[in-house]
């Protein structure tokens, strides 16, 4: 039981560390959002389930927290990316497919 909890917490901590590293290494807002959201969501799930293995009577609350994080983290990163796109931050690569699609819609 405790070994399983320790393994899960270690996985969670590893993914959170990778997410923090991604925040430093990634080139622009969109890539940073991807690193900061995806990796830390998985990291939080790992940490919460691991703590649930340590303390089984906390498990329902931890499941609720995981559900809430899974619901809100994509929403917040989506909204941040949308806001960044609205105020005109360009992605680092050549392709900005959302901008070209919006331009197409305006041309019609």
């Amino acid at each position: 039981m405790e070994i399983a909890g320790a393994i899960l917490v270690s996985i969670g901590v590893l993914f959170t560390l990778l997410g923090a590293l991604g925040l430093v290494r990634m080139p622009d807002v969109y890539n940073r959002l991807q690193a900061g959201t995806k990796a830390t969501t998985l990291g939080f799930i790992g940490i919460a389930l691991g703590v649930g293995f340590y303390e089984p009577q906390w498990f329902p609350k931890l499941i609720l927290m995981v559900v809430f994080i899974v619901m809100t983290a994509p929403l917040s990163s989506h909204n941040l990316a949308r806001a960044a796109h609205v105020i005109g931050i360009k992605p680092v690569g050549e392709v900005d497919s959302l901008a070209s699609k919006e331009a197409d819609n305006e041309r019609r």
Partner: protein
Amino acid sequence: MNKIAAIFLIGLISAGALGVYISNLPGKKPFKRNGHNDISRAYMTKTANGGKRNVIKKGDRKLENSSSNIVTAVVLDYRGFDTLGEVTVLFAAIAGIGLLLGGSRRRRIRPAGPVISSMAPWIAAFIIITSAYIFLHGHLSPGGGFPGGAMIAAGFLIMVLGMGSRAPKIFKTIETFGGLAFITVGVIGFLKKGSFLQNAFGSGEVGTLFGSIFLGILYAIIGFKVAAELSSGFGEFVAEEEGKHE
């Protein structure tokens, strides 16, 4: 005009209650002895030990207030009058923000995208249920009326921003009745036990939800009042914007 009258009324009632309270204080005793603050230590040991030798446990009865959270016991029971003042200060701050900034900061809110607007009711429901848990369990676990009320206001903020619904006008009524209910609980304590905001509802079993009805009622009132204050402070901005742009 309404707000000024409300502030004046609350101030008047508070001043009267303060007079009664000061005239009922026991005689002068030295507050500090041997370098220790005896009052704080007395209240700490009274809450933690219940006047007995051992620390209180779940299931103990016949305590002064059966709160298992010492902060709540001090904030709402022994120091409840100060908390009434805190809630009033928050109301005054929100009223001041509405007066000073409500007219000048008019900005159009960009409507939320389909992702946010379809998920906003679920998130808001989740947040409001969690906040009810937090302010009902204020005497059992960390939390209470102030963070619970702030979370309710956050839920309404998500509904207003994400779904484009108008801020309801009912918040000011809720806020007024919250203040009135707080003072009513205090007056009940004054009539039944002889001191403003004294625990007049008895105390039950430690560690249960209905063990300490007095603290639960007060924290629920504070939760609704804080939520209404914060939400109506935001609602003034939105209402004025919609009036301007439509």
